[in-house]
């Protein structure tokens, strides 16, 4: 039987622009914060395994072997350290591998540190670098980018289910409201529906990026880092950490076709559904047990689609729940309480760990006033790699 595995430390920098700073320093900052949160920096000597999540330091920053650099920067040698790269799901994948390291018996304490510094290049170059995860011959070479795919995806959903551009703007308004209260978010500015959808200047303020997606339907380009410390709750080492563990109740991943066009129905995200089903099964719960969720809304259409695939809403109805404020902070099922990728920001390699950081804060009751979910029991995070072709679902529990 696998041991109980929990998170006893969590750290995060303010997301935004870190482009004047070294990638390894940015990641190490979050790792230091996680140790401080767990009880002190001396605890780093108790770590049996370091996993670093980073998607493209080689391309954004011309820095590779980041895990080796991190342990040295933090005076943690000779602790084993490896880099985990799974596109924008690198963060949650690293947490999953950390879980597996403890479950296997090879480690009792794992540091998962994640980060990305993307603003070291121009926005156009960053879009191009992120697009390299698409199929080289059949997608990337065509000039397609992730916003391009999301635009095509959104148009299909609109035609099939009646989603409107105003509905997309409502998701953005909700996410920005949440981010405005989150001290770690990149964009801490609320927006109004008048400004980005209903008002006379809306089409200027909220211009098209990839039709029918507009600027407020897409995440910003963001730098940042996040870290968590995983511990075997049944090990004597668990007593070294001052914070009560937040238990990893379920964690699972699944894959789908690399080429989006090779899916039977482009609107169906099989990897999301399958990873969530496995995570629910592992946790012994279902969608109705989830108190709140962080869903990978690099484009707001993803928040809607993922919320359907994981079983929160019937297919084609999630936007009606947004209209009814069911996913607001005070709603029946708050979604993207952090502001999501949309407003908190999306430093690609860091995002999965940042989502889990938010689950930990909420489950501990440590979120800011006005942003804390009332008495949460289970939090879910869904982290996308590629265009939904490598997805990790994590469920955390407050015991």
């Amino acid at each position: 039987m696998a041991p109980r595995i929990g998170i006893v430390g969590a750290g995060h920098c303010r997301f935004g622009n870190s482009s004047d700073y070294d990638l390894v320093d940015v990641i190490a900052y979050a790792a230091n914060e996680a140790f401080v949160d767990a009880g002190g920096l001396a605890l780093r000597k108790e770590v049996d395994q370091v996993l670093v999540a980073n998607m493209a330091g080689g391309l954004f920053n011309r820095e590779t072997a980041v895990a080796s650099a991190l342990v040295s920067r933090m005076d943690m040698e000779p602790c084993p350290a490896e880099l985990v790269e799974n596109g924008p799901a690198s963060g949650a994948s690293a947490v999953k591998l950390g879980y597996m390291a403890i479950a296997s018996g090879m480690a009792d304490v794992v540091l998962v540190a994640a980060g990305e510094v993307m603003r070291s290049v121009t926005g156009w170059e960053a879009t191009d670098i992120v697009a390299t995860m698409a199929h080289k011959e059949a997608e990337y070479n065509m000039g397609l980018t992730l916003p391009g795919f999301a635009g095509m995806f959104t148009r299909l959903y609109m035609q099939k289910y009646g989603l409107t551009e105003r509905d997309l703007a409502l998701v953005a308004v909700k996410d920005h409201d949440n981010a405005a209260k989150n001290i770690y978010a990149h964009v801490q500015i609320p927006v109004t529906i008048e400004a980005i959808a209903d008002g006379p200047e809306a089409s200027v303020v909220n211009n098209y990026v990839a039709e029918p997606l507009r600027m407020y339907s897409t995440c910003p380009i963001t730098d940042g880092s996040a870290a968590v410390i995983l511990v075997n709750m049944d090990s004597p080492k668990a007593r070294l950490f001052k914070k009560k563990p937040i238990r990893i109740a379920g964690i699972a991943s699944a894959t789908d076709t690399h080429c989006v066009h090779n899916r039977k129905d482009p609107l169906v995200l099989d990897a999301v559904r399958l990873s969530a089903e496995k995570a629910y099964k592992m946790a012994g719960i279902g969608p109705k047990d989830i108190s709140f969720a962080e869903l990978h809304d690099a484009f707001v259409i993803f928040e809607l689609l993922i919320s359907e695939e994981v079983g929160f809403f019937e297919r084609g109805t999630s936007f009606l729940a947004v209209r009814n404020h069911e996913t607001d902070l005070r709603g029946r099922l708050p979604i993207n309480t952090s502001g999501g990728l949309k407003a908190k920001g999306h430093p690609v390699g860091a995002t999965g760990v940042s989502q889990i950081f938010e689950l930990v804060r909420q489950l501990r009751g440590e979120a800011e006033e006005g942003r804390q979910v009332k008495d949460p029991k289970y939090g879910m995070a869904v982290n996308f790699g590629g265009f939904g072709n490598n997805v990790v679902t994590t469920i955390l529990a407050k015991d």
Partner: protein
Amino acid sequence: MIDFSAYGEQTPHIHGFRCQKCGTIYYPAPMVCGKCDATRDPVTGRGWEEFDLEGRCTLLTWTRVWNLPEGFNKKFLMFGMVSFPNGLKASGRIEMEGDPKIGMALVARTIEADERPGKPVKVFVFELA
């Protein structure tokens, strides 16, 4: 002796792939046939037949992208996903005036594009039938 100048520039083509063991078709090329487990040698292509993927197709969805990546010097480009009569689907660029319509008939052809650094690449262009 070959006189290279006697040969005009070849028209670029994008290929579909047919497994000769079971007949299943693919785009882009797999390394293993999902139906019969036949493998494809990426150098010789032995056991697989290549065919030109072009001609009539149907538009499944589309977008007009305004924030093009590094290297593209256009105000916008339109992209679409199409299905061919043989069941294969593909993504590529759309070249036409005005807004496309989902379900409309298009014709696919291949061009060589060199917006990005490195060798030119083959790109699908979907146009009005």
